[in-house]
């Protein structure tokens, strides 16, 4: 029985490792909060700002996620950053938020933006049997894309969630934050004449 117990323990351990290793090992599991603490935005938001150095705004999670919604993970790399939200009704990675330097908005409809300094475009790809669509926020040096791939019956909740929960932080605020946290010795971005 000891061998059986050992084998079982190994299996559980291996399962744990399997879970830990699944997916991208540089994926960030903490949500990028617009205000992580009194010092300002979370590290994930700063990392997203570093992904797209030209972006004047950076997406973040601005409010607590409603019941049934979860943060999936964030991947930030050179040139782009994206994070996903999971829903128990609309499925895994139902909402994707992506920050890039630019994006193509052909075939979209421009509607009044809910964020200052940004233009908003919408494209609905499909409404039956499930909803799929994309929302673009275009601003100086960047583009914020919110993609919906909803498996549930009611897309309204997810669409509203994107407006209520997904916020933005101005790059200038992040620059100020880094400046203050380093005691005025460092800047987020290299300045004029800097390397």
């Amino acid at each position, binding site marked *: *029985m000891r*061998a*059986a117990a050992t*084998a*079982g323990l*190994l*299996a559980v351990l*291996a*399962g744990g*490792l*399997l879970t*830990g*290793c*699944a997916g*991208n*090992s*540089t*994926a*960030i*599991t*903490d949500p990028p909060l617009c205000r992580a603490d009194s010092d300002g935005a*979370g*590290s*994930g938001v*700063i*990392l997203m700002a*570093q992904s797209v*150095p030209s972006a004047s705004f950076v997406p973040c999670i601005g409010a607590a996620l409603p019941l049934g919604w979860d943060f999936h993970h964030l*991947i*930030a*790399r*050179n040139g782009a950053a994206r994070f996903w939200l999971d829903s128990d009704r609309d499925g895994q990675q139902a909402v994707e938020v992506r920050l890039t330097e630019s994006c193509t908005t052909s075939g979209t409809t421009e509607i009044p933006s809910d964020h200052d300094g940004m233009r908003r475009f919408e494209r609905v790809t499909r409404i039956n049997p499930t909803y799929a669509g994309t929302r673009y926020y275009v601003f100086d040096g960047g583009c914020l894309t919110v993609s919906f791939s909803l498996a549930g019956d009611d897309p309204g909740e997810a669409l509203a969630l994107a407006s209520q929960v997904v916020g933005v932080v101005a790059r200038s605020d992040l620059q100020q934050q*880094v400046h203050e*946290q*380093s*005691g005025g*010795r*460092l*800047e*987020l*971005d*290299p*300045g004029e004449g*800097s*390397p």
Partner: protein
Amino acid sequence: MATLPPVATATGAAARPAPPALRRVRRRRRPSGEPPPLPRHLAKSGKWWLAASAGVVVAWIVVAATGSVSHFDVVDTRVLQAFAQMRTAPLTRAALIAGGLATPIAVYVLWVANLAILVVLRRWRHLFVWFGVALVVVAFGSLMLNALQRPRPYDVELLGRWSGYSMPSLPITVLTAFLVSTLYALVPAGRTRTVGKWVICALLAITALSRLYLAQDHPTDIVAGAVLGVAVPLAAFRLLTPNDVFPVRYSRGRTAHLDVTGARGDAIVRALQDQLGLLATSVEPFNLAGSGGSTPLRIGVKSGEAAGETFVFGKLYAATHVRSDRWYKLGRTLLYGRLEDEQPFHSPRRLVQYEDYVLHLLSDAGLAVPRPLGIVEITPEREYVLVTEFIDGAREIGDAEVDERIIDQGLSIVRRLWDVGMAHRDIKPANVLVRNGTMFLIDTAFAEVRPSPWRQAVDLANMMLVLALRTDAEQVYRRARLQFSDEEIAEAFAATRGLTMPSQLRHLLREQGRDLHAQFLQLLPYRLPPVRIQRWSWRRVILTIATLFAALLAALILVNNLGQPL
């Protein structure tokens, strides 16, 4: 148990010659605190790297607790800015190429190539350690990235590819771990490995410089990554695949056997003198091909006669043999189930104690087995030598002259084993020796006290098959009827078939092209229905399910990580 007289055979009692006299000196007790003959140790460099990795973890905790990361950020940034001052277009192109080794595709190639080579070489232990190191390093690195949440360098332009947080530098951690694992799994110890270490240093230095130039990581991220990347595989390979136990070789030979030259050889000589009072003059491997469960040794010792020399036999048992025994018994339990009512050993000490005990038991039962001379401790709880009489000049029964006297002795041995309630469980030509008309039974590691009747019946059939290999079934059967009833012989052959015979016996039967088993069955006046080998118990069911589950998980992990370890 009182010592029984020698085994009586149908042709009279088999005389057992006295062993040669051995010269003994005064034994010496190892005082408290004195190291054993072969102390177990991790090399100095291993300790240094483990200490360094502990230092890295402590530094993380201190920095996180005191909120002093900005000081490190400033220092790191100044270093990176100094590198950035040197940037030119050609240098940047060169740096991007030089950093190629830390890219996902390069790490992937390294990963798959190593796994493939280790599978082809069937170096399973190194493969599992390699795989374990990869899992641990990637999982731990990923965990620390999320715990520390350090953004990429500030105040300097980042060039090239990067992903996620920067502390520790995961590409450097994984690349270092993979390179060090490659070195320890594929490169033989010695000068080649030393050269390999310098090559790895050079490759890592180039990669690190590239990443600093491109400002992809902070300098401290790289240092932390390199320390973890070295410490984990170094500790894992040195502890789980030590060179002297699992040497990396490209020559033929069984890797299960321990190297008995160098420090281990010296330790054995010293231990024999201190613990048994024997003056060893040589220690050499003996008949390695015939043994997979221990490292058999022929040890030259001073004999009782002036200036004379003789031999004793040693079986070196180490933790690796215990693990082999455990896997072997697990396999047999899965294959046979309830009939194999046996438990694995959990330490070399228990294993060697058991075999010594069995030898005493069989010797006291009047059976011709090598006389046990004692147990020698080499490394406490890890390595022991069982010392016995050496049957000098004996030949395997497959190469010896076999007449009716030998046949009777073989059958009487089984009869006596039955009488004293034991089974040898590994009767095969390699374990039956003949010298000057006397048969010896060796290798009693698998012997069992009060075995199942099935096991005892199998012993009889295997002995009859071994004897018939050099004679014929009819002769052996005729002699067997003098000591066993038809029912007992019928039971033996009903119990024995296929996997219940040792593999050497099966191979020899196949080589000879004679179906001796069928011939014995034809000689029997009647046959008993075959004893069902496959018996199920709750233990076997649980073990089977657990094994299948573990295999499935291992396959899933392999498939998951084959795709991309980073």
